[in-house]
C-alpha cells in the first residue's frame, strides 16, 4: 500500500491529510458548544475596558503575564480562586499566556488599585524593587482607540450575541447590565464618564487635564481593563 501511495501523489496527500485532520476533529469539536457558557458573574467588557484590553494585546502583556490560575494551593494562595472555563466566555482572543516572567493577572483587580497601576506603569522598579518590567510611559501620552473598541462590541453583539444591554446575574444575587451605546458618540460619552472616575484616583496632571478635555489616554483605558479582572 505504501509503495502504491508513493507513486500516486494525490492519494498520498489525501492519506496524509486524513491522518493529520483526524486528531483535530476528535479533540476540538466535542467541546465547542459546552465550553463557551459563561458562569454566574461573568460580564462582557465595557467600551473603555475593551479599549484597555486592546492596549494590553498591542503591547503583548501576555508575553510575560498569564491569566490562568491553576488549581494548586500555591496558586490559589497567591492569585485567588482557580480559573473556571466560563469566566473566559467573552474573551476574544483568550489571554492565558504561556510564560510567567511576571505574576498572573487573572484576578489582579482584586488586589491592585488605580494609583498602584499608575505608579507601577510609570516606573515598575520604584514600586517593586528588583522588578525587570519595562516602563510604559508612552501610555500616558497616547490616546486610547475608543472607536475600534466600540466596533468590536457591536460586532460581537451582532455575531455572537454577546449580552450587552441585558441583565446578567451576579454572584451575590443582584443583576448587572453592561451598556452598549446606540451610537458611537453615545459610547464615547459613556467611556469618558468611566475614564473620569478613574482619572479622579490618579495623580498625573497631564492625564487629568486630557480627560477633562475629553481625551482618554491609553493608561486610563488599560487601568480600567486591569481593574475589571476579578
Amino acid at each position, binding site marked *: 500500500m505504501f509503495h502504491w501511495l508513493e507513486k500516486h501523489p494525490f492519494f*498520498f*496527500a489525501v492519506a496524509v491529510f486524513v491522518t493529520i485532520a483526524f486528531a483535530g476533529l476528535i479533540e476540538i469539536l466535542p*467541546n465547542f458548544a459546552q465550553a463557551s457558557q459563561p458562569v454566574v458573574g461573568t460580564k462582557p467588557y465595557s467600551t473603555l475596558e475593551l479599549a484597555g484590553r486592546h492596549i494590553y*494585546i498591542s503591547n503583548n502583556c501576555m508575553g510575560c503575564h498569564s491569566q490562568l490560575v491553576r488549581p494548586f494551593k500555591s496558586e490559589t494562595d497567591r492569585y485567588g480562586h482557580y480559573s473556571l472555563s466560563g469566566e473566559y466566555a467573552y474573551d476574544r482572543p483568550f489571554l492565558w499566556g*504561556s510564560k510567567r516572567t511576571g505574576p498572573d493577572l487573572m484576578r489582579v483587580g482584586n488586589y491592585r488599585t488605580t494609583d498602584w497601576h499608575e505608579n507601577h506603569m510609570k516606573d515598575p522598579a520604584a514600586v517593586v524593587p528588583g522588578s525587570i518590567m519595562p516602563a*510604559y510611559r508612552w501610555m500616558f501620552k497616547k490616546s486610547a482607540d475608543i472607536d475600534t473598541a466600540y466596533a468590536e462590541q457591536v460586532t460581537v453583539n451582532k455575531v455572537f450575541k454577546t449580552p450587552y444591554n441585558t441583565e446578567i446575574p451576579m454572584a451575590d444575587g443582584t443583576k448587572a447590565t453592561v451598556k452598549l451605546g446606540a451610537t458611537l458618540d453615545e459610547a464615547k460619552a459613556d467611556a469618558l464618564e468611566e475614564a473620569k472616575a478613574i482619572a479622579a484616583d490618579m495623580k498625573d496632571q497631564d492625564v487629568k487635564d486630557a480627560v477633562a478635555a475629553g481625551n482618554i489616554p491609553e493608561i486610563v483605558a488599560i487601568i480600567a481593563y486591569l481593574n475589571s479582572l476579578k
Partner: protein
Amino acid sequence: MENRPLEYDYTVAKWFMLVTVVLGIVGMLVGVILAWQMAFPGVNLMLGEGLAEYTNFSRLRPLHTDSVIFGFTLSGIWATWYYVGQRVLKVSMAESKFLMFLAKLHFFVYLLVVVAVVGTLLLGISTGKEYADFEWPIDIAVVVVWVLWGMGLFGLIGIRREKSLYISIWYYIATFLGIAMLYLFNNMEIPTYFASGGIGNWYHSVSMYSGTNDALVQWWYGHNAVAFGFTVPIVAMIYYFLPKESGQAVYSYKLSLLAFWGLMFVYLWAGGHHLIYSTVPDWMQTMGSVFSVVLILPSWGSAINMLLTMKGEWQQVAASPLIKFMILASTFYMFSTLEGPIQAIKSVNALAHFTDWIVGHVHDGVLGWVAFMIMAALFHMAPRVYKREIYSKSLMNTQFWVQTLGVVLYFTSMWIAGITQGMMWRAHDEFGNLAYSFIDTVAVLHPYFTIRAVGGTLYLVGMFLFAYNMYKTMTSARRVEESELQNASPMGA
C-alpha cells in the same frame, strides 16, 4: 540526450538562501536584545525614551518569535525545497515557464509579507495569539503565499520523471497540508470595521472563538506549527542532505515509513499538553500528555534512522564539519523530543509550565536542531548552486563550536532558572504560607538570565561567521568542476 545530466535551475533557491541568512541574523539579533533586556532592564531604553515603545521587550518579543519561525525557518525550508524538489523528482524548474513564474511570484509576495509583518508588529498591531499575531489583511497574504507554494509543489510533482516520491517529498507535502489546515482554522476572525458598518480601524478583527475554545484551537495550532514548521520540513532536509553529503544510503526504508506515518498520526494530538491544568476538559489534557510521550517513537525513529545511516562511516563526523552539523542536529532532535514529553507529564508540567524551562526546551530544539540543520543544508547547497567550494572549513569548525557552546549555555541556564522558579512559586513555610513573594522568584534568576544572554550572543556570533563564510563562498571561493560535487562538499582551508 537521455544520458546528459539535467541542468537544474536554482534561481529561486538562491534568493531564498539569501533571505534565510538575513532573517536568521535579524531574528536572532532581536532574540539577543530580549535576552539582555531580561538580565538588564535598562536595555529596554537602548534607543532612548522617545523610541521606548519600539525597543520595549514586549513589542520585540513577537518580532523575535515570528522572524525566526516564519522568516528564517520558512525561507530555509523554501530554499531547500527549490533545490531538493528538482533533484529528487528529476525535473528542472527551467522546463516549465509557468512553475518558474509561480516560484518567483511566491518569493516576492513572501518578501512583501515579511515587510508587513515587521512593520505591524513594531506598531503593536496584533491579534494577540502567539505565532498567529497577524491581522486579517496579512493572513490573507499569507494564504496567497502558501497557495503559490502549493501550486508550485504539486506542479513540479505533476511533471516529474522519477515516479516514486522520495521520503523528503513526503515531508514537504505534509508541511504544506498541515500548516494550511492549522493556519486557516486558527485565524478565523471577523473584521470589526466591516461587521460594525465602518467604525474604527479597518485592519482590526475579533476571534471567531472565545475563551477556552480559543485556547484549544490556538494550541492545536501553536504546537503543530512547531510540528509542521520545525519538525516535518527539517526531517525532509536531513533525509536528503545527510545521505547525499556522507554518500551513505538511508539505513532503513521501513523505519522511515514507520516514523513518517507515526509522526503524522500522533503529532496533532499532542497540542493539549500546552493546556494541562487549564480549564479545557481533563480528558483532552490527558490525551495531550499521553500522546506526547508516544511521540518519542516516531521522532526517535527518524533520528535513529539518520544516526544509523552513518554506520561504519563515523570517521566522517570528525573529518567534516558539515557532517558534524547534521549529526549534532539529529542528536539535539532526539534530546528535544525526549525533553518535550517529559515536560508534558502532568506532574512535571505542574512545575515546568509558565517557567523558563519551556523557553529552554524551545531553544535547544530550534537552535540545536532546526537552525543547525538549515545551516548544514545551505552549506551543502552553496557549492552546487554557486559552483564554488565552501570558502573556509576552519571557519565552519569555529562556527560549530561557538554555536554549540552557545546552545549548551542557553539550555542549561534555562533549566536551572525554570526549575528554581517553579520550586520557589510552590514553596511553603512551616505554617503553610507561601515562602516567597513573586519578586523573590524574579531576582534569583538574574545570573541565569545573564548566562543565557551570553549563550545567545555566542550563537549570534556564529551566525555572523556563517553569513561571512556564505558570502565569501558566493563571491570569491575557488571555482569547482561538476566532478567535485558528488558527495562530500568541497571546502577550502
